[in-house]
């Protein structure tokens, strides 16, 4: 990593150091709570799930809830964590581009011999690290919750479950960079990408509920998300989504290089 890139990534991470705790701790505590209560709700939950309509169970990826891993997936990893991390990703990447433009920082940084592509790359890399750190904090707190409650969460599957969120969230960082190629307003970038995040989730849901519409799932990254805590990480999907995220970042960098950074 070049000295410039290293300096920019380190600065970005330092500026967003609070975000790791601000997002990691609430998500981790929530996950820990879910894991911790599982032993006491296990029997009633299993009965309740048996009564759910089959379509509903398929739509939300609810299978048997006979172990804590399945419960953690249903309650946290199928919806809350991916949506939260996807939104965090676009906020993080926007802070280094549109946020920096709004604060006047971009003008100062671009007075130095730094290319815009390098600035974008630094924002993307720092976001990738930030997401990993948030997942680490969330996973660690979940593990602590399991240990304290004796819920018996298996470490390996849990790590895979949380790690699998990373490429999905990173894809929205890539989309955020593309959006910054069109607009330097943070509200526009975060709003549009958050909209895309929700739209992709809904498309995947619709595709699951109606077999005739299953084709629309190809428009959603959630199709490739799966259920890593139970089935393990799909290496092809993991690498593919990461690659698409990087390609989106590259396209965004190309757009950002060519746009006017108007006052």
């Amino acid at each position, binding site marked *: 990593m070049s*000295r*410039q890139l290293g*300096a920019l990534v380190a600065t970005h991470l330092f*500026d967003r150091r609070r975000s790791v705790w601000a997002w990691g701790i609430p998500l981790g505590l929530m996950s820990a709570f879910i894991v911790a209560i599982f032993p006491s709700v296990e029997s009633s939950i299993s009965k309740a799930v048996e009564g759910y309509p089959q379509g509903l169970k398929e739509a939300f990826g609810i299978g048997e809830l006979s172990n804590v891993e399945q419960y953690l997936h249903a309650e946290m990893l199928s919806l809350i964590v991916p949506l939260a991390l996807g939104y965090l990703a676009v906020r993080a990447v926007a802070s280094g581009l549109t946020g920096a433009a709004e*604060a*006047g920082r971009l003008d100062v940084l*671009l007075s*130095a011999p730094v290319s815009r592509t390098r600035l974008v790359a630094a924002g993307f890399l720092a976001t990738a690290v930030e997401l990993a750190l948030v997942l680490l904090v969330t996973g660690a707190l979940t593990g602590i919750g399991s240990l304290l409650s004796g819920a018996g969460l298996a470490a390996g599957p849990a790590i895979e479950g949380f790690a699998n969120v990373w490429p999905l969230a990173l894809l929205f960082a890539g989309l955020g960079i593309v959006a910054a190629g069109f607009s330097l307003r943070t509200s526009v970038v975060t709003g549009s990408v958050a909209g895309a995040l929700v739209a992709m989730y809904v498309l995947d849901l619709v595709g699951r509920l109606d077999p005739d519409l299953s084709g629309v799932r190809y428009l959603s990254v959630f199709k490739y998300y799966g259920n890593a805590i139970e089935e393990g990480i799909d290496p092809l999907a993991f690498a593919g989504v990461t690659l698409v995220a990087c390609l989106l970042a590259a396209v965004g960098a190309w757009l950002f290089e060519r746009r006017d950074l*108007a006052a």
Partner: protein
Amino acid sequence: MAAETAAIETEALTKRYGKHRGIEDVTFSVRPGEVFGFLGPNGAGKTTTIRTLLDLIHPTAGTARLFGLDSRRDSVAIRARLGNLPGDFGFGRETPGRQALHLLARLRGIDGIGRAEELAQRFRADLDRPLGQLSRGNRQKIGLILATFHRPELLILDEPTSGLDPLMQEEFLALVAEERDRGAAVFLSSHELDEVQRVCDRVGIVRGGRLVAVERMADLLGKARRRFTVELADPAGAERLRSLPEVADFELAGNRVSFSAGGDLDAVVRELAGHHVVDIEATHPSLEEVFLGYYDEREAG
């Protein structure tokens, strides 16, 4: 001997934003060791010109070369040699100046923050408080240090003294003179005419996105009309001064006549020679008067 490469050289530089005007056909050059003032009211196109030079915005037509390099193609190499203080300096509310300096130093490939400590003492700038806790003037000092700590060959300063107290404005003008003396070129955009008059070698006047004049400061002031107040022993016949083509704004009050005159003053002196002149006072106009006159003239034209 090879011709000296201009620090800045623009040729018909134009930037349009759809239907909105940016700048049009802006052509000028700035030599090393020269302080060039870029004068105009808000919205005249000063910042657009600067942002185009820095490749923050791309020209619609025309070219800009800095140190002989193309502003677009060689932007990174150019920025290694310049320092820039943006018009509305900001860096992030929580960042202390020292941290920003260390980052900029690393981005420039410099070990340490050079003469920043010395400049901080000189400008009484606090490098350790987050920028969000500083007043506008104190933030501006940090911006000035960031722009100058690495001894650039070209300084681009957009409204540099906004927010600075008079003492610090003096210190700033001294710094600009020192930078010029060591051979740096300074491009100073301002509507503070007094500071431009005191420190600039040449000025460009921008109006409505067009550069309407580029003059040496001395020439600009020399061309301007001067104000005369003459006390006569006997004002009879003084009205004849009013009819001279060089004379304007003629006023007669008691024994005292006052008028402005420009160009060749021979006819004025000859007319006054026919009177017993008790006292005479000639006042050179400030740049402000020249500048406003320039604007009035153009608008009338």
